[in-house]
């Protein structure tokens, strides 16, 4: 509903329920907005698209996008919907071949906003080299949606290398992040104007495909990748530790966070490690290749960093003497330990999903 404000002129063209009813308004929307943007790839509008693809194993992913406001510093819901699914495919090492697009529109959405989002989808898809081959449009009554929801699904082709994913993570792996964290989460909070602060921060929204392809192109033995979306680094590390049963040790000071993100999080009592990102990944690969991988990642984002390592499951968190060992006599399997600048380790816990600003 970002585009609807009481002061809008009645003359503004808006989405009506009829745009989703299958009649002439639906046809008009498809013919005048969606076909020019995405076209039918095979020249035929039909129930399903057909396309030619490289033979070999495929990857398939789907995601739904709900974001308020629809247009935010550094991006919009359309670009997010394309890049989010492209990034999901990239996390298993896949190159995207085709996308589908489902638009759920709220009655009253300004048509100008929809056009802007559709143009953004087209631009983002072109930049990622992936066609939008099929889609759907529905309209819900005013008040039943946040203006616009998008679902994208994507099919991608996998290369010949070994499978990339949490089962490949090994003790001794290095853990890297591809850039500084938390920009998207803070930019969205600020854009909602609910938190009483302003910031020049833009979302980190970006395709991770080029950096992943560059890593693979150098023949690096990538064990696992995870794009850092909702829940941030904390959620990604927690899930990988849980799924692999391994102990992940993170040096808190090594995690790159922009000063503006740090300040906003300090002010609001939020954890930057749990803030959302839309253009950052965490990477696991053998420690011997960490420096080379870091150089590749820093070619895209200078803030990329090595943040920790994977330890043997069930071992104490710190084999050195010192403060760390006094603390955690028994480390459960599948744990993430953060070591701070004072040498103290603490266990990472998972937030409740929605971070709420503190009272004072």
């Amino acid at each position, binding site marked *: 509903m970002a585009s609807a404000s009481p002061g809008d002129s009645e003359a503004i063209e808006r989405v009506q329920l009829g745009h989703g009813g299958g009649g002439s308004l639906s046809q008009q929307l498809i013919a005048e907005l969606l076909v020019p943007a995405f076209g039918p790839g095979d020249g035929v509008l039909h129930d399903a698209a057909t396309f030619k693809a490289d033979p070999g194993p495929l990857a398939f992913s789907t995601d739904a996008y709900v974001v308020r406001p629809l247009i935010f510093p550094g991006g919009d819901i359309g670009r997010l919907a394309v890049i989010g699914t492209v990034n999901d495919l990239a996390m298993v090492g896949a190159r995207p071949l085709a996308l589908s697009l489902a638009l759920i529109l709220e009655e009253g959405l300004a048509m100008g906003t929809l056009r802007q989002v559709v143009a953004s989808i087209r631009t983002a898809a072109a930049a990622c080299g992936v066609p939008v081959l099929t889609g759907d449009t529905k309209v819900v009554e005013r008040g039943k949606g946040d203006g616009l929801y998008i679902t994208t699904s994507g099919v991608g082709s996998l290369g010949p290398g070994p499978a990339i994913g949490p089962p490949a993570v090994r003790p001794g792996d290095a853990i890297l992040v591809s850039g500084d964290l938390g920009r998207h989460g803070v930019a969205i909070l600020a854009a909602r104007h609910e938190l009483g602060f302003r910031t020049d921060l833009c979302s980190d929204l970006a395709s991770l495909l080029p950096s992943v392809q560059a890593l693979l192109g150098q023949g690096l033995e990538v064990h696992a990748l995870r794009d850092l979306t909702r829940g941030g680094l904390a959620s990604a590390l927690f899930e990988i530790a849980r799924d692999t049963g391994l102990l992940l040790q993170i040096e808190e000071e090594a995690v790159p966070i922009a*000063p503006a993100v740090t*300040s906003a999080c300090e002010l609001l009592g939020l954890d930057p490690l749990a803030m959302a990102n839309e253009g950052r990944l965490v990477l696991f690969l053998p420690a011997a290749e960490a420096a080379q991988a870091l150089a590749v990642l820093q070619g895209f984002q200078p803030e990329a960093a090595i943040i920790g390592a994977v330890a043997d499951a069930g071992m104490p968190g710190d084999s050195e003497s010192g403060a760390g060992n*006094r603390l*955690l*006599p028994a480390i459960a399997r599948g744990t993430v330990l953060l070591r701070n600048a*004072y040498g*103290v380790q*603490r266990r990472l*816990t998972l937030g409740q999903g929605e971070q709420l600003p503190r*009272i004072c």
Partner: protein
Amino acid sequence: MNPLAPYRRPEAVQQLVGQLQQAISRPWTLMEVCGGQTHALLRHGLDRLLPEGLELIHGPGCPVCVTPAATIDRALELAARPGVILCSYGDMLRVPGSDGRSLLDLRAAGACVRVVTSPLDALAIARDSPGQQVVFFAVGFETTAPATALLAHQAWCCGSSNLALLVGHVRIAPAMEALLASPHNRVQGFLAAGHVCAVMGSEELEPLSARFHVPVVVTGFEPVDLLEGLLRCVRQLERGEGRVENAYGRACRPEGNAAARALIARVFEPVDQLWRGLGVFPASGLRLRPPYAALDAARLPGQATEHRPGPDAAAACISGQVLQGLARPTACPAFGRTCTPERPLGAPMVSSEGACAAYWHHGDRAENSAAARPLVRAAEASSLSDKAEP
């Protein structure tokens, strides 16, 4: 550079830890009054760097934790009414009332509950929603009370007809005094909450310190601040002193913030106040004084002047002992078992300043063992005062 970096420098932390070790010659028990301090201590792992004999206990300085169930029930009842927009700070939304439901639960069921970060947002919402009744659920210590007072003053001045205040503000000094006067008291020195003292001034605590001959050190929230506060407290104890010191000079002056104090005094008057799990402390609450009392949510139609809570689903919660420093969170049989941030029995597990939440997120949960037994038996310490929570 992060402006807080100087207060987090590892070299400074190491130096202060060394000084503490040198300063301490026997065991001492100190209380950090504020939940924000508790979280900072555990988040930075400072509790694990301290000398063995220095015991830290966690005080009642979490505004969410000490808000009585009856007040939360009243907020829930108001939020459930058609046409009501209930606004509060994020922390309040997860706290369960007597029947275990929170404001977030009500919101999911269709109630209009909004998170605000400034009380004045509630006035803007009231202006934008003329057909609806806006209720601001105001909680917090003297830190947030001035902003609520400003809201009340502005609402009164502009004649707002659809804004009401459900006031749950509390004052920290009377609670500290009640802790010291309790026969179960274990506190030998306080780290006073820096942000409260930034408003009220360090002078407010001097009578208390003198009466009980107890060191009180006004302390900030960064590692260097906290260790400096502990060091000054320990040095006083070792020397047999008991006075107020200000280790938070960059934010706190002896007289505090005169404008904020005047605003509080203009809008509120002290009142005896029930603290959840702790009992009634004299003059420890704030209520709207005339003419601002016209904004009191208790005056809305259908509001009973005495609200009686239903059966207390949180009967298993030992928050009263935790907030007096008589039991560690991990000593609670429910901790991490039937009480987690996702399904809290009491506010200390869900508030971002709650001691139980601090242990859950930053502490070692394996502590829940014989070593972490309650410090005083539950039966001995259910309440600090004669007037226990109904």
